[in-house]
Each structure stands twice: as C-alpha cells, then as structure tokens.
C-alpha cells in the first residue's frame, strides 16, 4: 500500500534532528512507495535540500506559537498532499502533536506517539519519582523547586554531581562555585525546577525502542556511542547484544505502558555494574538509520502501528554494526530558497 508520510526535524547541522534518519529508513532498502513530505521550521533547515530524500517540503509554524495555527497549517498541507501518517521527531513538538492528535485522526492523518499522561511521568522533573515508585535503578536525584533548597541538596548528593535544566542542558559540578555558576545560568535560561543528580563513574548506553499501546517492546536497538562531538552528540556508535540493557528497557516501557518510539538513556555504574536509567527521549534518536543495519527498521514499524496494523516483535538487533556521521554540502539553485521564503513550500520535479 502506498502511503504519504510527513516527517519533522529536518535540520541536520552540528546537532542533527532525527527526521532525516527516519526518512532514510523509509527509503531502505528500496525507495519509499509514496510521498515523503518534509515539515520544516526554517527555510535553511538543511534536510530540505537533500533532493533524493524528499518529494515536497513545507514550512510549518513553531510548535510553541499556537496549536490552532499549527493545525491549520497541517490541514492546508493535507489538502495538497493527502498525508496518511506524520512522524514527529522533536521533543519540543510532542505537546502540540499530543494536543491535536484527535483532530489529525478525524482528518485521516495517523500518528503513533505516547499520550501526555505517560510522557509527563518521564519529564526531567518527574523521572526520579517514577523510578522510585517502580523500583527502577537511577542515580540519586533531587529536584530543586526553590533556590533555598540548593545547599542542603548538594550536601546530600555530594560531588561530583550533575545539574540539569528542566528542559535542556546539563553541567558537571565539582565544587560549590560550579553549582552556583550553573544554577544561575540554567535558572535564567530555563527557570525552575532544576535537577541535581549524582554523577556516576559510568559507561553510557542508549536503546532506541518501539513499543505498542500495551507497553510491550516490539523492536529495540541498543548502542554504545563510540565518539561524541563537543556538544555530546554521537558521531560514531556500534550496536550491541546486551540482555541487561534490553531487560531494563523492556521493564521501563511496560511500567509506563509506553506507546511509540523512544530513546532510553542508561548508565552502567563502573563500581557496582548496575544499570541506571537517566533519561527517556520521547522520539527517535538522530542515529536511527543505524537500525536498518541492525535489521530493525523501526520507523517502518511505527508507520504500521500508526495505521492500526498488528505488529509482531522483531528478532533481536544484529550487534557489531557501526555508523559514522558524515557532514556533506548540499548545492541548490536560488529558486528553491525563493519558493520556501515566498510560498512556504517546495516541490521537487522528480516527485511529479
């Protein structure tokens, strides 16, 4: 069946969004038999210009503007392209997609994302509470809701510790001066609450998972990032065969009744060997194309789930498969930029 799929998160510069990896998965092993529609926030979202990947690109309003404007723009795009499925790939979009999911469904546009009451449980400020209540190992964590709580919390956790903004950014602190410096920086940027967490001497692993509406794990690719950029983003990684990572991920998603894709971030404490949950990103990771090498095309699985099909669990991911991220330059005529700037859309001739 030919399906038209719209994907967000097309900007792949020094901090690549997952959208292009998702689209490459759809084209694997053969070109996708339907339209691929890129949904971009900026004329210079780089992936728009990767001509072989997309048939059409449309600008959409930023998700924090208004859900009404967001929905209206998707309705317009749907009228032009008849979208069957949307795969959102950015954390910042999830709330708006959760909000408009019923309207999208009534338009005939399917999504497969976890509902708000589930993602609320794994927000940075709630994750420790979830772990505590479900007996999931995690590094000692204190949520700071008032600056007056800071000193006692630091004393309890001890150094080194991580200080994390409620949405983004995290810094290692080795002294009280570090704590004060980063607390102010994060408070001005993201406000309170803020998260203090014990920094473990550890190894970091990620597992990209897809589970169904019962929280049953259907596919998962565990990896170790083998090279990081200075922003902490993977530019090389290898797939693993690690039953402890799989079991912890399976247990977490079942407890949450998670439905949809996610990236589970896990630390292995070098001292105790214990695996600790540190974060769950409610979307595919930017390295998702690696999943095709491990014989688990998870984006295609999400499309089937979105379309209401029954999906069986996949065989374990193949281990020892590597990726290296490679930056390249895309060249295009000025009228591509013009079309997007003036009309908010671009249609490649090859898709006609």
């Amino acid at each position: 069946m030919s399906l038209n799929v719209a994907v967000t998160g097309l900007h792949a510069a020094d901090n690549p969004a997952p959208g292009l990896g998702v689209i490459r998965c759809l084209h694997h092993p053969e070109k996708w038999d339907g339209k691929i529609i890129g949904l971009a926030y900026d004329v210079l979202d780089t992936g728009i210009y990767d001509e072989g990947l997309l048939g059409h690109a449309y600008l959409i309003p930023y998700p924090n503007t208004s859900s009404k404007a967001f929905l209206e723009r998707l309705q317009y795009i749907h009228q032009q392209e008849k979208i069957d499925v949307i795969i959102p790939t950015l954390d910042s979009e999830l709330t708006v997609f959760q909000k408009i999911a019923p309207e999208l469904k009534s338009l005939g546009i399917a999504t497969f994302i976890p509902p708000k009451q589930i993602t609320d449980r794994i927000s940075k400020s709630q994750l420790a509470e979830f772990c505590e209540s479900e007996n999931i190992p995690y590094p000692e964590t204190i949520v700071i809701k008032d600056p007056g709580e800071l000193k006692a919390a630091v004393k309890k956790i001890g150094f080194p510790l991580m200080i994390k903004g409620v949405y983004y950014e995290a810094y290692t602190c080795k002294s009280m001066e570090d704590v004060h410096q980063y607390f102010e920086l994060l408070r001005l940027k993201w406000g309170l609450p803020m998260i203090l967490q014990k920094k473990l001497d550890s190894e970091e692993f990620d597992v990209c998972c897809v589970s169904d509406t019962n929280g049953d794990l259907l596919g998962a690719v565990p990896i170790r990032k083998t090279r990081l950029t200075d922003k902490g983003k993977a530019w090389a990684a290898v797939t693993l065969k690690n039953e402890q990572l799989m079991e912890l991920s399976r247990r977490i998603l079942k407890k949450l009744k998670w439905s949809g894709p996610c990236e589970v971030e896990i630390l292995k404490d070098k001292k105790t060997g214990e695996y600790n949950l540190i974060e769950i990103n409610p979307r595919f990771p930017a390295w998702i194309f690696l999943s095709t090498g491990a014989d688990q095309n998870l984006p295609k699985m999400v499309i089937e789930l979105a379309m209401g099909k029954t999906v069986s669990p996949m065989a374990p991911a193949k281990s020892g498969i590597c990726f290296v991220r490679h930056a390249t330059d895309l060249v295009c005529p000025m009228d591509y930029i013009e079309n997007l700037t003036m009309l908010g859309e671009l249609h490649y001739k090859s898709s006609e």
Partner: protein
Amino acid sequence: MSEIFKSEVTLSENGFLFDHGSGLTYTLNTTGQFIFRQLQSGQKSKQIMEKMLDEFEVIEETARKDLDDFFRQLNELGLIDL
C-alpha cells in the same frame, strides 16, 4: 560461547576483539590471541598452560606469569568472570 565470558565476544583472524555487550574493542598480540582462542574453545587454565609450552619457546614460569597476567587483564576489563 564459553561460559567464562560475560557477554558474546568475537575475535577476528587479525586479533581484533569486539565485546558485543559493551561495544568496546581491543587488539590482542599473538600470545593473547592464542590464549583467547583456547578460552573460546572451553579449555581450562591448566590445559592452556600445557598448550602454551607446546606452542611457544617459553619456560613454565614465564608462561604461567603471562597467563595469569592475561587472565587478570581480561577480568579487569570485564570480559571474563574468574
């Protein structure tokens, strides 16, 4: 896979070792490869020692020290359970 290993491990013909559980890689010299392959085929320390004396021009004391050192390193790297 021999039960001594904590996770699946692959040793290539060139001596490149990949631990499928952790994603870490190592390079082994000729002696290391020899011992590792014996471990993979389920040989115990005493049998490996005898094979080392057959294979290499080495006195028993040196072979024992090399074997103990290698086991200790594998253990420290989390590759085997001693």
